[in-house]
């Protein structure tokens, strides 16, 4: 009794099919029960979050025109004309904004480079294959964890109180966060190297620093550079909001525009930020592929 389906594929008879089906179902019971349990937990969590975050869908629907009209407002000049009809008026503060954006880039550059240097030194203390001293490794790891888990803007808030308003707290906050984030990535790279060159150098009498210089570094430097460049890109985005808490860059001016409802300024600064982030994105992608192919190493 072999049935034939539409595509000409022969199907097994029911008597053979049923045991197969029931064994398939039996084998899935556990995973189905698990998925069901996870789904239930997820739904409960979602309901709780809904209540805790004061979600009001009606307010949202009611006010949603406000969102679209917000974009309408920021695309209008004071005179009521659309911003793109008069770019000179729209970007009246271009010189100031570009200077602030340049400042933002410098802040993220300094933070990234100094932070990466810190990460570079620390990563050898946290890599299990280089530093065999357990207590030092543990301390270094917890330190890096602390540096990257506390959000950079929280560091910036504290530093603004300590160092005063300006780019300095921004640089330091980005630096600490970068050291923490890159330190982890760097040490993972170091832990994945081929240890044979290191052993070879150690066996021929090199000390650990020399072994790191001549056996570890050549293996990791391209990856380090690549991660560092990627971090710079992330930090540029982060630095644009440092000014929200008084830590330098374009954020301060941007917050002012939003708070005082200088609508066309908001869109002008947004355009500058987005354009800069795009350009940095493109450049760093280029640079990273250059590093990857060893053109710079």
């Amino acid at each position, binding site marked *: 009794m072999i049935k034939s*389906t*539409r*595509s000409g*594929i022969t199907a097994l008879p029911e008597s053979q099919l049923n045991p197969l089906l029931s064994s398939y179902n039996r084998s899935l019971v556990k995973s189905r029960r698990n998925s069901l349990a996870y789904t239930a937990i997820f739904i409960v*969590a*979602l309901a*709780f*979050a*809904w209540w*805790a*975050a*004061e*979600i*009001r869908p009606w*307010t*949202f629907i009611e*006010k949603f025109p*406000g*969102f679209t009209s*917000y974009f309408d407002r920021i695309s209008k000049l004071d005179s009521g004309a659309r911003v793109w009809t008069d770019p000179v008026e729209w970007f009246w503060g271009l010189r100031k904004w570009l200077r602030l954006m340049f*400042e933002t880039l*410098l*802040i993220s*550059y*300094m933070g990234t*480079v*100094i932070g990466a240097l810190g990460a570079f030194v620390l990563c050898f203390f946290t890599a*299990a294959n280089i530093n065999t001293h357990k207590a030092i490794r*543990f301390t270094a*790891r917890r330190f890096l*964890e*602390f540096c990257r*888990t*506390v*959000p950079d*803007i*929280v560091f910036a*808030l*504290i530093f603004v*109180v*300590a*160092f005063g308003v300006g*780019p*300095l707290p921004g640089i330091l906050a980005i630096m600490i966060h970068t050291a923490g984030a890159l330190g982890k990535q760097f040490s993972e790279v170091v832990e994945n190297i081929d240890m044979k060159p290191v052993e070879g150098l150690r066996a021929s009498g090199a000390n650990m620093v020399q072994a790191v210089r001549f056996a570890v570094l050549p293996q990791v430097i391209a990856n380090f550079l690549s991660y560092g460049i990627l971090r710079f890109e992330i930090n540029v*985005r*982060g630095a*644009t*909001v440092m000014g*929200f*808490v008084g830590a*330098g860059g374009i954020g301060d001016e*941007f*917050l002012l525009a*939003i708070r005082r409802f200088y609508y066309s300024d908001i869109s002008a600064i*947004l355009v500058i*930020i*987005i354009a800069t982030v*795009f350009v940095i*994105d493109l450049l760093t992608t280029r640079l990273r592929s250059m590093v990857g192919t060893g053109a*710079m190493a």
Partner: protein
Amino acid sequence: MNPANFNVTQPDIADLAQRYPNIMNPSPRGKIMTGLLAVAMVALIAFAAWWLGLSFARVISGINQLGLFAWLMMPPDAGSQTSLYFRALGETLAISLLGTVLGAVLAFPLGILAAANVLPSWIFRFGLRRSMDVLRSIDILVWALIWINVVGLGPFAGVLAIASSDIGAFGKLFAETIEGASAKGAEAIRSTGGSRLHELRFGLIPEVLPVILGTILYFFESNTRSATIIGIVGAGGIGLHLYEQIRTVEWQHVSYMIIMILVTVAIIDYGSSKLRAAIAGRQPEHRKS
């Protein structure tokens, strides 16, 4: 081996240098380039320090201040506001969860549309991808400020801010996942007589779902960090209290909240990495502590 054979003598070195000229006497070009790069980077640092008007004296006095703050932070203490802070932390988690889920749900159709193997029109795809890039390049805090203008102060604005920035990131990642899915699973289902729906259910979904769920969990982790600071601009969560206590220099409260955040993030990270491993059906990543 005789230890005497182990000593490398001058003639040996000369011999090695002759046999491996590139390694023993590399051309100076690489070294010069590296040197120039290092000089340029240091020069840019110096220039930045000058342009930004950094002064060494201020760094020193600031570090002294920080030392004082660290001293004043001990021991961490929330005074009478413990329950307030814990409620705010719960709100932070709620913002993060809802924002991530909302972003993922909205990004899913966009991701499908942006996948090259789904929609062949490259102009549409290019437009969609660039718009998602724009969504991504605006920081969450900026999104929060925009949404506060629409729905008012509070956690709801935070949820929408996280969702807005996540749509861009999720859309891109989902599209890449779908593009990367191999057609073999679906083909196998088809060859045994499965319908188009069976292909999706047993061919495509089992292949992309673990990756997508893993991505979502990963973003939930990172959004929890973002949600802790979103209160700085008034979009709910513990950030508002943190901001206020820093401004009123209540350092014991500040350290208490920072520890709360650290512990929460650690728990979420741990749980999420376990869950991600379970979803992927593999053991957790090999980790040495």
